[in-house]
């Protein structure tokens, strides 16, 4: 019988080294490990390499802080709560970050190859696009494909002829095996079993692909509770390395079954961080000027958090005002 290896938020962030390759749980504005990101920034982590199936609030925060050197992904934004990733846009236009673009399906292929321990994954998605234009291979142009970094493949992709059924050209997309998977999940069992309460996104692929896994959760529950319905679980205890307990750790992103995403907070972030001065002021208020999660939650206040709390029946809040009527 295993036992969840519970550590503090500060210890978790402290294990991550400058330059490490990171991948996250969640999807755009859902189930992102936000408190872990804030603590990493307070500790001054830098030169990070993010592989994301798609970006979202947490990576916008890291990119805005100047902590990210390499970003490879398919998308950045906050859906209707911020239609583009304004921080990535600013850094990319200014030449302050190295970017490599994929399609969503390509990124899924890469993390799945990593999860399976195979060096590449075949796909015919998004062929014929400029995503595959050799002139636009961002990492290649930066000289990063010389084999010296084990987290960066020698080729962005390879095209082969299907050798089995003569289907025609098909892409081989290289695996990605990040140093760390930073996973937010609402529940972790006493033996480390992990559960999420809605769509699983790429969470299990991300945690299998990574060398080491930190799960930040709302609460520890008896493992026997999670084992009553094993088909509902995301990961087994032996797949994860460290657990941090931190209520509301995904705020302002949503955690289905626990709380909704904080639309006002996300909209405001996207609005005020369009300039670096705006970002710096915002980050001083919500990250650097805050000692940790407790002070952050106190700043938000009980009224706001209660509005976000999910209905136990529906899994999302019925008290937030979402539209104009």
């Amino acid at each position, binding site marked *: 019988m295993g036992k969840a290896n519970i550590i503090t938020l500060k210890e978790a962030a402290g294990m991550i080294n400058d330059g490490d390759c990171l991948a996250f749980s*969640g*999807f*755009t504005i*859902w189930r992102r490990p936000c408190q872990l990101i804030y603590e990493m920034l307070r500790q001054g982590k830098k030169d990070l390499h993010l592989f994301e199936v*798609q970006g979202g609030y947490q990576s916008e925060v890291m990119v805005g802080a100047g902590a990210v050197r390499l970003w490879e992904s*398919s*998308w950045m934004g906050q*859906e*209707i*709560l911020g*239609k*583009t990733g304004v921080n*990535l*846009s600013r850094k*990319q*236009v200014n030449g302050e970050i190295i970017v490599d*673009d*994929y*399609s*969503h*399906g390509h990124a*899924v292929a890469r993390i*799945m190859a990593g999860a399976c321990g195979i060096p590449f994954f075949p*796909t*015919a*998605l*998004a*062929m*014929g*696009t*400029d*995503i*595959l*234009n*050799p*002139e*636009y291979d961002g990492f290649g*142009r930066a000289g990063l494909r010389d084999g010296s970094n084990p987290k960066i493949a020698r080729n962005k992709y390879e095209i082969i002829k299907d050798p089995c*059924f*003569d*289907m*025609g*050209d*098909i892409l081989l997309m290289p695996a990605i095996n990040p140093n760390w998977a930073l996973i937010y999940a609402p529940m972790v069992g006493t033996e480390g079993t992990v559960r999420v309460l*809605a*769509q*699983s*996104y*790429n969470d299990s*692929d991300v945690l299998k692909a990574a060398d080491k896994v930190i799960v930040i959760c709302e609460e520890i529950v008896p493992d026997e509770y999670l084992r009553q319905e094993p088909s509902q679980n995301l990961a087994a205890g032996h797949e994860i390395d460290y657990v941090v307990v931190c209520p509301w750790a995904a705020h302002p992103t*949503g955690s*289905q079954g626990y709380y909704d995403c904080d*639309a006002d907070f996300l909209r405001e972030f996207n609005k005020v961080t369009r300039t670096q001065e705006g970002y710096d002021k915002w980050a001083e208020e919500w990250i650097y000027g805050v000692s940790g999660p407790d002070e952050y939650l106190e700043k938000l206040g009980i009224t706001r958090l209660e509005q976000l709390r999910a209905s136990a029946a*529906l*899994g*999302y809040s019925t008290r937030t005002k*979402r*539209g*104009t*009527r």
Partner: protein
Amino acid sequence: MTASNEYAKIGEFKPIDLLAAAAAREVNDGDVVFAGTGLPMLAIALAQNEHAPNAVCIYEAGSIDGRPIDLPTSVGDARCAYQSSKAGGLFETFYGQLHSGYVDLGFLGGAEIDKYGNVNTTILGDYNKPSVRFTGSGGNADINSFARRTVLIMVQEKRRFKENVDYITSPGWRLKKWPTGEWAHKKDVYGKFFHGGPTAVITNMAVFRFDEEGIMYLDTVHPGFTVEDVKNNTGFDLNVSRVSGETTPPTYKQIDILYNKVDPEGIFLP
């Protein structure tokens, strides 16, 4: 206003109502539809409430055939997964559903489009020194490459309807065949993986379709606009020889469904 099947008159509907109705008309009953956030959610819900009750909606974050009782604001929303037949992840939607060939129809958008239906959602200018960064592909390129039909919803402006887009994020009918980059028809690029491609473009002024060669032509013009208006807001030489008439406006019943059943909270509808 009674909720009849009569067509609403100019002034009785907003531009977005007509867009939603026109997009909903592209959904056939029984279609498996891959939809994104915003207008596509209105279109699929309207179609399911009217002529396409058996349409199945897939959201890329992982929910399949959900029956939301509250309109989602994100494809990752718990609301998408309410009463879904399955809720998994992106490997299921992009490979288990899309790559394996289940998807009939996709709704997509973009910042720029060319006459072949190639779409740019990534950057403006030179990719290696861009002047603006947008979201990037997300699922746009994947859905355009593998759905049997795609409907592109765009804003009609000269700078967006271009002879050549700055970056081909998402594949239309004529593409670059890598590694050389020579232009080729989509069928030549996709081989036996070919499923189809863009079939309609819907803007705030008009509906466009694609001919046998995969070149865009003007089909219908929305009430209140002229063919000249559309030409003046298109940056390439537009084929207007096949115009079939005026775009059908929404019915009173459709407006009632949109405002009272689909989006009563006013999330996407003003």
